[in-house]
């Protein structure tokens, strides 16, 4: 799964769940689109569905500092690589 694949999926989620069309990559999502803590929790559920894997409480807590789209993409990449590494073992 490439970063482009992830970005495409996250943009789909933003449009469907948060009515945000093509969010910019490095703007503060709260300031630009009113994306708040409630949305962040909803996003985590969507990420779980996308990865087909449950997030641990610690992984969820890591997401609380996310402010931009690029940080979301970094976060999902990190989760995906963790899961790939766990599968290889």
């Amino acid at each position, binding site marked *: 799964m490439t970063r482009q694949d992830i970005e495409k999926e996250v943009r789909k989620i933003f449009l469907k769940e948060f*009515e945000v069309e093509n969010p910019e990559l490095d703007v503060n999502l709260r300031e630009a689109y009113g994306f708040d803590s*409630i949305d962040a*929790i909803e996003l985590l*559920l969507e990420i779980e569905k996308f990865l087909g894997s449950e997030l641990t409480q610690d992984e969820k807590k890591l997401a609380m500092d996310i402010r931009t789209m690029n940080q979301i993409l970094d976060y999902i990449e990190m989760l995906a690589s963790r899961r790939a590494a766990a599968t290889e073992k």
Partner: protein
Amino acid sequence: MERRVVITACSAITPIGHGRQQIVESLQKGASGVRTLREDELITRFIHSRVYGTVDYPIVYDFARQHRKTMGPVAYYACQVAKEVLAQAGLPQDFVTGGSLGIAFGSIHGSPTVQRDIYKIFFEAKDKATYQGIGAVDYLKSMVHTTAVNISKMFGITGRIISSGTACTTSSQSIGFGYEAVKYGLQDAMLCGGADEYDTITVAVFDNLLACSTAYNDHPERTPRPFDQDRDGLVVAEGAGAVMLEEYEFAKKRGATILGEVIGFACNSNGGDLILPNLEGITKTLQLGLRNAGISAPDLDLVSAHATATKMGDIIEAQANAAVFGPDPYVVALKSYMGHTMAACGAIETVLTLYMMQEGFIAPTLNLESVDERCAMINHVRKLIEYPVKTAAIQNFAFGGVNTSLIIRKFS
């Protein structure tokens, strides 16, 4: 410090229409908003009462997603009437957000639709995925102060929040407590009201108490029948109502249109049975209302009765009315048009009374074909009359033994 409190805007979503024009037209035509109870595909098949005061017309909501996400149906109603009242009042934006405007708004128990979904998961959750169906916002949609705080969020209102949840006196308390907040200088303005959404749990509660109307299931418009000898109980309904209360000097200075003045409010409790109507408690409320307004019974032109059309409730209310107000003031039971809108009824009945004051008429009690002789000692309005109402009392009585009396006056 005691200040005069005026009403500078009002609006309502009711089973007989949305806003002044539709509602006045329905009152003048004698149109009922009671319809056949809509199916919930859960418990309606067990409910004996097949009637419901129904909002059956579309409402176009123009709320941004960031606001919609914390709103259940009851908050949609509440925010819509709040939006209309804010637009009508025309308060400066810095006043709205600056802390001088507060909110008194409630519902009987948040959003029952959302609560039902939560409980469905509660009882059926078999795995973690199902459990996660309890969304992050479900509490915000279903909590008892959901109407008030969604209004504060949507419009950036930062003053005090009062969110009464006292069943049928919810919104009469909203207006009363809002009146006191402005009167005593705690806020310069208060947006007050109440709302309740379509809910079959409430119908089931009254149905099981044998307090719901069942004899007119095939002719919904013929019930409820307050004070009529053939009344057979209340009809549950949905809706919302709101008023803007402002300190008089402030409203005058900014050139606001003044629709009326709140001149008195009383609230007490029966201190006993939580269900049965209580003559002593209600009588005391009506007396306290007059005293608080500084008027006497002959000053009252009109009484908007609580009158839910239950057997005992109407008789007790008629007795209290007769004892305190005497036989002269006109009495109308506005629930005859739409049923009992629960948390919204006090605000809706206040809004309708303001409309009648402004238009110079009094609507008759619908379905009052033959007055129960035990309720006959008061001056029932039996047909539409032209009348310049100057002073009116709006009274409401709730499960739990809570009673309110609001006194409003045409502004001059």
